[in-house]
């Protein structure tokens, strides 16, 4: 289990409990976090689950695969800490993770 806090672009925080093995995207969708549509259901096919990961956790969220990199290349307002949340798997190491949803997805 890990506690993950979703932060909307306007600063509103939503802390939720996340089960290991799920993706951060699934956690967001199950908790109706606005701004994470995840149209393709996590197949890395749509780029509608873009988030900014708290720098302190960036290394713990795992390496970006080629597919994700090129999907992000076409997302809007990409930053160095951008990730597709469907590609981040929840582990104990992510306890305390904070992710922010981009304004363009609202």
């Amino acid at each position, binding site marked *: 289990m890990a506690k993950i806090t979703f932060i909307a672009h306007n600063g509103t925080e939503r802390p939720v409990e996340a089960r290991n093995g*799920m993706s951060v995207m*699934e956690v967001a*969708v*199950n908790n*109706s976090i606005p701004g994470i*549509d995840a*149209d*393709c*259901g996590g*197949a*890395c*096919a*749509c*780029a509608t689950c873009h988030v900014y990961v708290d720098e302190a956790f960036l290394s713990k969220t795992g390496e970006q695969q080629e*597919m994700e990199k*090129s*999907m992000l*290349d*076409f997302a809007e307002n990409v930053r160095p800490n951008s990730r597709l949340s469907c590609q981040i798997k929840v582990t104990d190491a992510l306890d305390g993770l904070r992710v922010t949803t981009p304004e363009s997805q609202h």
Partner: protein
Amino acid sequence: MALGGIRNIVVAGAGQAAAQALQSLRSGGYDGRLSVVGDEAALPYQRPPLSKAYLKGEFEQDRLYFKPGAWYEDQKIDVVLGTTVTGINRARREVQLEHGGHLAYDVLILATGSRPRQLTLPGADLAGVYDLRTLADVGRLSPQMVPGRKMVIIGAGYIGLEAAAVARQMGLEVTVLEMAPRVLARVTSPVLSAFYEAEHRGHGVRILTGVQTARLNGANGQVTSVVLADGTELPADIVLSGIGILPNEELAKNAGIACSNGILVDRDGRTSDPQVFAAGDCASRPLVHYGRSGRLESVHNAIEQGKLVAAAILGLPRPAEDCPWFWSDQYDLKLQIAGLSQGYDTHVVRGDPATRRFAVFYLKNATLIAVDAVNSPPEFLASKKLIISGAKLAPDVLIDTSTPMKDIAAQAAA
């Protein structure tokens, strides 16, 4: 035009379009009565993984659900499962339910989806013959997916080929039968068909194209082989049928709502009855980027129409209509499709299929209308924008791999 005084909305069907309509209605501010009636036992769930990761047993059932059960309670949505809507009384504005009783509506949303076209061959009713459309189908099929068993798949569309990839990876002996001269013949170009045929053969799948299936043989009620028109007999422990889907339009048709290969709707998803909307696989909608109407069987379409319908009901601005898009996962290949290629006059290949990373662009009158992108997200994402823009594009620009897709898209937009 908003519909005034709506306090009671019924959604018939509980797939992706229904789930989206429910979410969009509530997030759009609708606080009246909201009911959803589904004929399956499960809460609304994602279908794409059924022929991909879920069939392979890579994740648990509860991860297929769009929303957990608590969400429906929280949103005050009445969920009626395991129940078919059997009729619509438009004069009384109520729907009849399979087990008796009825539900009144001010607005009805038909999200009845589609069903697999059934095999009509002798022997099609033998045990061991499966469809792949629902969780229940996977529940029946998946225990049979045992290494070494012989599986014959009838139909080389996306469902058939995705299932073939999964079955092969699970160690089954797989044969795919296709009536057309090539796989994916209905949906893509010979370039892509040849590529996927080679991939599957490379993984040990036997593919027979241009063949007619004559009958299924069985013993003790269980299928044992598939017999082709030329007499060839293929031993089979499992037969999977993937020969297309048909829209569930009968409910609408029987109620006198206009249908023609799908329930006919306008851009807002409204049917010929202004109190009745339709969304998803069951609906035939205007394809605004293509100047015609048609039925799309896809996640994008279900989501988009769910949103369009909700917006129209609530009197909100119409959401943007995206370029249609699809995807298919087979082995380690991700195929992403943007647009509709039907009617193309030119196609060009960017990249080398031998590298397993390439894209096929389809043009009509020098305008890009579709792309099939294999392991090539930039080509897919750039094309989505280019297709909507309707920009003229020279084939030699598209195939120049020294210029990134991003730059090609930017230049076309300039």
